[in-house]
């Protein structure tokens, strides 16, 4: 089912955990809420579920206003961060719970409940463990019981809070792929929360990047990675370098030297240049480039990472090269130019304009040549 979140605001005391958040979740999609800890991901998920009520704003399930509905009426499936399995019930009873507590008019017969629970356990690959108690299961198995329990009520939307957060790396990776499979097979509209960008980018159809109670960007994994719309997204997703530069007559300058990048039609002034370590080209003669001394060199899988010192005033910059290109340089001084980059205008007077409605940093130019 399609879920629309409109202008949601949520305060705890006077503290706004979410501030004017709007989001359209399409029917059947797998969408990730990604952001650092404390950015409001769980709060948004709980608001959609009805476990929390918004200070302001509306949530639609399809065409219906769900804001005033209780959590029971919304018919959602929620998987809690630490699973919250009923410890005194067997796996089978846990999975059947949502069907068993229905009023008799809507409750399937006992045999039907049992059959559906067993089918779900088969789907999550736990057949044969239905008589176990949660304490007798591994973390990954508990996670799958929690998912089966949530799916048993045929929810309008499936909500998962850090579903793999408590598992070790190996199990995490396997479950991640497996969750994608389950989603493709069952087609539930699914929202999951994570602070792990790799997880979000690999698993989700679309990713919602959140920071400080607001949505920074919504897009496919490709869009999020290739076209970050704000300095925060640039910095949070993947690796990036940032340099303080100045604009003068359409050219970008690092201190007193032009670096060979043009940003036509932009007013003069200070700005910040962002580029990714692998989006660069090496240059031989430097008639407008970035140049620095190699301070460290690391081999990481198929690429070589060079750390460059561009001068005292700047943070060190990291670039990635194919190993053979790296060995052909003279190892001490490297000249290069970003091939894909982005400028963000410095908000010199943020304090004078406290509300951030006008985008936190105005974008200047899209890409270089």
């Amino acid at each position, binding site marked *: 089912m399609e879920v629309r979140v409109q202008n949601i605001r949520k305060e705890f005391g006077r503290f706004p955990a979410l501030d004017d958040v709007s989001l359209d979740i399409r029917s059947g999609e797998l969408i990730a809420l990604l952001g650092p800890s404390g950015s409001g991901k769980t709060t948004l998920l709980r608001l959609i579920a009805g476990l929390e009520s918004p200070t302001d704003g509306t949530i639609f399930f399809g065409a219906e206003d769900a804001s005033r509905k209780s959590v*029971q009426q919304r018919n959602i499936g*929620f998987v809690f961060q630490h699973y*919250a399995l009923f*410890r005194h019930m067997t796996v089978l009873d846990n999975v059947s719970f949502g069907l068993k*507590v229905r009023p008799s008019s809507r409750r399937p017969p006992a045999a039907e409940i049992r059959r559906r629970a067993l089918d779900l356990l088969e789907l999550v690959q736990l057949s044969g463990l239905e008589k176990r*108690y949660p*304490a007798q299961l591994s973390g990954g198995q508990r996670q799958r019981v929690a998912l089966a329990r949530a799916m048993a009520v045929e929810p309008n939307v499936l909500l998962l809070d850090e579903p793999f957060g408590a598992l070790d790396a*190996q199990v995490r990776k396997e479950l991640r792929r*497996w969750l994608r499979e389950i989603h493709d097979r069952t087609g539930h509209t699914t929202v999951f929360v994570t602070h792990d960008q790799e997880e979000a980018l690999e698993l989700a159809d679309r990713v919602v990047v959140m920071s400080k109670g607001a949505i920074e960007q919504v897009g496919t994994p490709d869009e999020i990675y290739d076209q970050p719309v704000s300095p925060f997204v640039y910095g949070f997703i993947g690796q990036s370098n940032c340099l303080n530069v100045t604009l003068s007559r359409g050219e970008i300058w690092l201190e007193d030297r032009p670096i060979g990048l043009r940003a036509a039609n932009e007013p003069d002034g200070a700005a910040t240049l962002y580029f990714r370590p692998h989006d660069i080209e090496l240059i031989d003669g430097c008639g407008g480039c970035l140049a620095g001394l190699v301070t460290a060199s690391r081999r990481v899988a198929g690429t070589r990472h060079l750390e460059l010192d561009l001068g005292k005033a700047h943070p060190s910059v990291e670039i990635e090269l194919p190993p053979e290109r790296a060995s052909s340089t003279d190892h001490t001084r490297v000249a290069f130019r970003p091939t894909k980059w982005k400028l963000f205008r410095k908000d010199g007077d943020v304090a004078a304009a406290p509300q951030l409605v006008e985008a936190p940093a105005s974008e200047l130019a899209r890409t270089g040549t």
Partner: protein
Amino acid sequence: MALDSSSVPTAAPSKLVKAATSETRIARLTLIVVALGFVVLFLLLPLATVFIEAFRNGPVEFATTLRDPETFSAIRLTLIVAAIAVPLNLVFGVAAAWAIAKFEFKGKAFLTTLIDLPFSVSPVISGLVFVLLFGANSALGPFLQKYGIHILFAVPGLVLATVFVTFPFVARELIPLMQEQGTSDEEAALSLGATGWQTFWHVTLPNIKWGLLYGVLLCNARAMGEFGAVSVVSGHIRGQTNTMPLQVEILYNEYNFVAAFAVATVLALLALVTLVLKTALELRYSDEIAASRRH
């Protein structure tokens, strides 16, 4: 199970290294002797004395004293008072623990402190409070008299005093347990469509049942044994408002030692039954208890 691949390697501890917690033999022996000595001196010896005194003149005399109508009425009254006070405090304790552990509200810290009040106030004061509230000279006194309602020197007064003195037991036992368990189990049940009542019955209650049982057993033991508060409100009417502890005192003051100790044995036996019950349950359900604490 394609997804299972967890095997925990167990490190074998080296035998040569002395375990950090191992004590010397002497230290261990001393500790055991001190602990045992204390238990024998302060617990077993007095208990044994009670039984020896009760049977001083043989089992026949013991049986006759217990058949005395006044003593019999005291035993009955104690059971009645406990049977009313314990369920009341069960309900109150669960409600208070629920409110404190699962909700945020103003005055929560105050309520938590208030629950401990009966533990910190002398039982005699607790009794006096009810005398001041319901006595003939109190504001309520004339009203009660007019409608012929007897609270002081009657069963209602005894129940009130007992409830007051024993109400922390259940709540105290449950609050830390419920706080540790948090609210996510309940939220999970609600999100699956369960009503509030179903959630309480199928999720909350099973999660707290062992704590609840301990609380009730302790509450019961205290309700039967309470002396101070009950003594103030009882009025000591023989055969009517004397509970077992009060009866013991009366008999003792009349130098009727055998009878006094005979009643005392019954009281002690009730306490022992409570203890045995608790231990038996712990043994029988040790796995389940461990599982409900873990997770």
